[in-house]
């Protein structure tokens, strides 16, 4: 198997980036093998890439259910365990349940959505990564693997499409 390296092509704008992605497709680099790194979000339709999925909404729904179950316990479980009559209210009041249920359901929903961001994004990630600081200056990087023999060909293709730089990158501490 030929030696491979990771190339990074840096673009100033989205339009040449999209052309570069198409060119890489033509040159045999599949979507799974390349990554786009940018300083602002671009959705997949803009990039012409397959839609990404995320499990955060499903996780958040699970969190909401946990919050709801906790509310059920607080409203119906606790008075059962430690009965105290309050202000002539029934022991298991339904209207009060809605208030506690709402707060805890929302807390569960948002807490797990936040947790989901960490799990799905694999944060925190302090190990060395492929990255160049120009990204946060608004540049857009296309990162893809290629064989050493094909390096010049890929480099020429990217430069001809408007890449400001094409170079091999190695993981480094951010």
């Amino acid at each position, binding site marked *: 198997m030929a030696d491979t390296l990771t190339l990074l092509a840096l673009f100033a704008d*989205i339009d040449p980036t999209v052309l570069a992605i198409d060119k890489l497709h033509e040159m045999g680099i599949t979507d799974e093998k390349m*990554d*786009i*790194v*940018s*300083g*602002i*979000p*671009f*959705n*997949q339709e*803009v990039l012409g*890439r397959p839609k*990404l999925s*995320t499990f*955060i*909404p499903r996780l*958040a729904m699970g969190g909401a259910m946990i919050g709801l179950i906790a509310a059920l316990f*607080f*409203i119906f479980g*606790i*008075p059962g*365990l*430690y009965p*105290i009559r*309050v*202000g002539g*209210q029934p022991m298991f*009041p339904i209207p*009060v349940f809605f*208030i*506690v249920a*709402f*707060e*805890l359901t*929302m*807390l569960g*929903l*948002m*807490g797990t*959505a*936040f947790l*989901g*961001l*960490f799990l*799905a*994004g694999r*944060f*925190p*990630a*302090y*190990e060395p*990564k492929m*990255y160049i*600081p120009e*990204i*946060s*200056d*608004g540049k857009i990087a296309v990162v893809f693997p290629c064989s050493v023999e094909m390096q010049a060909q890929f480099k020429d293709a990217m430069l001809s499409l408007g890449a400001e730089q094409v170079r091999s990158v190695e993981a480094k501490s*951010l």
Partner: protein
Amino acid sequence: MATMAEAIPLPDASASEPGSQREHLMLDPRPRGEMNDMVMESMHTTSKKFWGMVIFLVLTVLFALVGAWVYMIAEGMGVTGLTRPVYWGIFIVDMVFWIGISHAGTFISALLRVMKYEIRRPFTRAAELMTTFGLIQAALCIFIHLGRVWLAYWLVPYPNGRDLWPNFHSPLMWDFMAITTYVIASTMYLFMPLIPDLAMARDRSTGWRKTLYRVTSLGFRGTEAEWKHLKTAMNIFAFAIIPVMFSVHTVVSWDFAMSTRPGWNSTVFGPYFVIGALHSGIAAVMIVLFMIRSTMKNMKYFIRPEHFDFLGKLSLIISMAWAYFFFNDYLVPWYGGNKFEQLLLDFHAHGPFAWVWVSMLICNIVIPWAILWNKKWRRSPWLMLVIGIVINIGMWIERFVIIPVSLTITRMPFTWRIYKPSIEIPITIGTFALFMLLYMLASRLIPLVPVWEVQEGQNAHTLRKVGKAKIPSVGDID
């Protein structure tokens, strides 16, 4: 329209010209690197005046807040002006006030994000930060009001040796849960859109700042997957935190409305409190934006008269809504003829606190309506600062009227007594000093402008030539 209209490039950045497209931040783009440098410079630049102010605020917090609170803990609640029949005084006024302030962050950031109001972009962070710091003050006020603060953990539901659980039938317990939910959620909501800006700061820092931003940016690089997860989580929050925001101040209002006291037992209290919270919160954003714009370097580029204009319009509408709810809350008991309700209304308008009650109406209705209808005045940052301060004085007074003034009149006339605050005053000053101190320190550590959101917005804007006019056009980029 596509054949009639052609997209034309936006002008290069230069000084904004009044009346031109360049006065709009979204139509006056600068290179991202330049905007990053501007924000970083604003964070790194401090002056002797800044540190002088920090030292003054630290001393104020130490003496007025910590010192007075420690004295109160040592001597007991007797050193306050609280006595029968007024057991809820300025600490609760402050708590309600600070929760109100905290509403602006969520309202501006979440609601305007959901509604895709582009003008929100440069000042969402400044407003979100207000939410978190406002809630810290509110929580502090609750602990101060508790008196025996070391027993605060009794509010937390957990199995314990006392076999005693918090009473979830009580509005005070709902309040504890609602505020806890809101503090946690709004802090997370502040942090999420901050991650890309912390990564930007990481790439431009050295020394201890580099370490700080490296840790807090969590290793964010800006890959497609990272953006996807971040945007998804932010969307969930933006939708979920809006009803939580409404619920928090509604639940706070129920602390009062669930009782059968004259002046409190009102079905309109929930929305009345929510709109009051927005009134003070939006006004506080005006104050904060003025301070940021006038004291921090480069902020005049990001915070412009158009933003004050927008907040002024919002404030005018909210002021009208507040007047509507106030009138509802006034009219029904006035018409009902209940003896003690009548006595209370008379006490508000003609008693020893009548000047306070009248000031409330002047600050919350008369002055905003007189000023905010005028576009030219709305675009004056100085005037909007004054309006912001006036509204916040008015809203603090509103809570003062609702709580200690209304508590004076009970159904037992022999208990009537005028509330005279004592140690509450330095503690209140201390909470304001702490809020300002936290904000000032945060302004040197946290990028107050979400640069990536500004650039995203500027990318979505174009000028479109329709006939002889150039019309701003926004693409839906989400």
